[in-house]
């Protein structure tokens, strides 16, 4: 069964008098455990697609089935619940809360989900170790390097053990070397079974994905899976 099934997805934005079709009749299916790179020029709709997949945005038309369940008709709070348990986000600018330490940032999704303190501490300690951050637990984001910050963000995205990780230009603010580390980390997660969708400008990074989607004007221009043997 496909993890993600999009059919006839439309997303329009009103910009002054003109209506922009960010996504125009998009059909897409992504299976569990896939590693997908979404590429395309600016304004092609790849960020809009990622926001829709992450339930941060709603389509004007079409249906989105996540793990077989139609999530477009869910209420805002039900969608928040799905985000909390099934989806992890990794952002280009990390989006760490500056006043919280690395450990607290990682624990944030569990705190929002109301998980008990002892369980949170246990999982954070484990995550800090897995991501090589055990010496950085009590550091604030401004005391961490770019690579460390993104590792904290990835730890945070995975702490609730989601089925899907959505990464928006995860290496965009990093130098090549640390970017490479972060990509390796994401790929290791994918190897452990998590579905990974990465939006990127970087063709080299896109090449590393097992499946490439190229978007243009709100449509899929190229889907490498379409040419692959069924």
């Amino acid at each position, binding site marked *: 069964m496909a993890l993600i099934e999009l059919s006839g997805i439309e997303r329009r934005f009103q910009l002054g008098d003109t209506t922009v079709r960010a996504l125009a009749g998009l059909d897409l299916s992504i299976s569990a455990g896939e590693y997908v790179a979404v590429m395309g020029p600016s304004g092609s709709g790849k960020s809009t697609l990622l926001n829709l997949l992450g339930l941060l945005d709603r389509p004007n038309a079409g249906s989105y089935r996540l793990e077989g369940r139609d999530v477009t008709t869910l209420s805002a709070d039900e969608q*928040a619940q799905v*985000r909390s348990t099934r989806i992890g986000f990794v952002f280009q600018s990390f989006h760490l809360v500056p006043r919280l330490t690395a450990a607290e940032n990682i624990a944030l999704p569990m705190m929002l989900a*109301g998980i008990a303190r002892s369980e949170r501490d246990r999982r954070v300690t484990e995550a800090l170790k897995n991501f090589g951050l055990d010496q950085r637990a009590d550091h604030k984001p401004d005391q961490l390097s770019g690579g460390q910050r993104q590792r904290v963000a990835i730890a945070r995205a995975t702490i609730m053990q989601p089925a899907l990780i959505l990464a928006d230009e995860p290496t965009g603010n990093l130098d090549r070397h640390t970017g490479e580390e972060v990509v390796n980390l994401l790929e290791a997660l994918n190897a452990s079974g998590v579905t990974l969708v990465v939006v990127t400008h970087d063709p080299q990074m896109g090449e590393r994905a097992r499946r490439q989607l190229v978007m243009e004007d709100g449509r899929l221009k190229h889907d490498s899976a379409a040419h692959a043997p069924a």
Partner: protein
Amino acid sequence: MRLPDILRFARDAATGYPVRTALSVLAMAIGVAAVVLLTALGDGARRYVVGQFSSLGSNLVIVLPGRTGTGGFNPATAITNTPRDLTIDDAGALRRAPAVHRVAPLAVGTSEINFGGRLREVMVAGTTRDYFAIRDFDLAQGDALPEEDWNRGSAVAVIGATIRAELFGSAPAVGQLVRIGDRRVRIVGVLKSTGQGLGMNTDELVIVPVAFAQAMFNSNTLFRVLVEARSRDAIPQARDQTLTILTQRHRGEEDVTVITQDAVLATFDKLLGALTLAVAGIAAISLAVAGILVMNVMLVAVTQRTGEIGLLKALGAPARTIRLAFLTEAAMLSAVGALLGYLLGQLGAFALRQIFPIFPAYPPDWAVIAGLSTAIGTGLLFGFLPARRAARLDPVQALMKH
């Protein structure tokens, strides 16, 4: 999200921006301190006046000559034309009333007291032995006026502490002969210094038998008759009986005014209570202003933390959690401000009491409770709008602002 987590999150968020937080806490603190301090002043004035009245004695019914005079205890009203004099016999007749415990007639005038070449102007009160009991006067030395026929008036006097000090210095006063006006009088007692008493300073008072005073001032009328009822509950009866007896004695003409101390007290109590309430109302305006400031601070916080709110949404926080987090932060600012203001206000009231020991500047409980709850109430009320705005932010837009 669990409650302790929400509290910690809100606290960290507030302390993350110390200047802004400190300013709004300060505003709230000043508002609450104003309420506490101003009501302490108002209520202190009320207590002060009520205390002064109570020092006149308890269960008092006061008889004034004339129908019109309802004024206070100004000695100047002693020289008023009344249809019929209020006499010593009138006062004596009141002793027959069943609800009356004690009666003291009072004639007042000014004269000169002279001893050993030292001369000063004094207020002279002519009355009887019961006056001391009714007014609760304590004697420092000697005895009160002797128990005698009210119409006899022997040449004795009890003097106030200041007069004793001025005339006799450290020499003994009791037993000495002094001259009051053109009469020679023997000092039988000295009052304990009190420094209080509405209208009359008892430290500068000379008390002589009532008939003696009337002879000295060449007058038959009394300034007041003080009637003490048997109990607090008997005050209305004592008042009615007094009025009946005096009307009978004055051939059916009701030409005296009878006031109860309770009525006077209640009027002042009400008046100054209203004043305190008005002052509290004015101070409450500053609380509203502080509430609006908290709202402003929280709106700025929502704008400043838009990216963070977007993140929280992306991480799966429902609108309710975000609303609660911001509301908690606003409530915390108000609560800390209110508490600080309460302490500041109490400190101010304490300082006032230290500077003016006679003035009981304690804030009333109702004002403290009202002040604190208004502070937290306005904080929550004005925190609601920013919290709702935060909860309604579009996550995609919010995440782009970083």
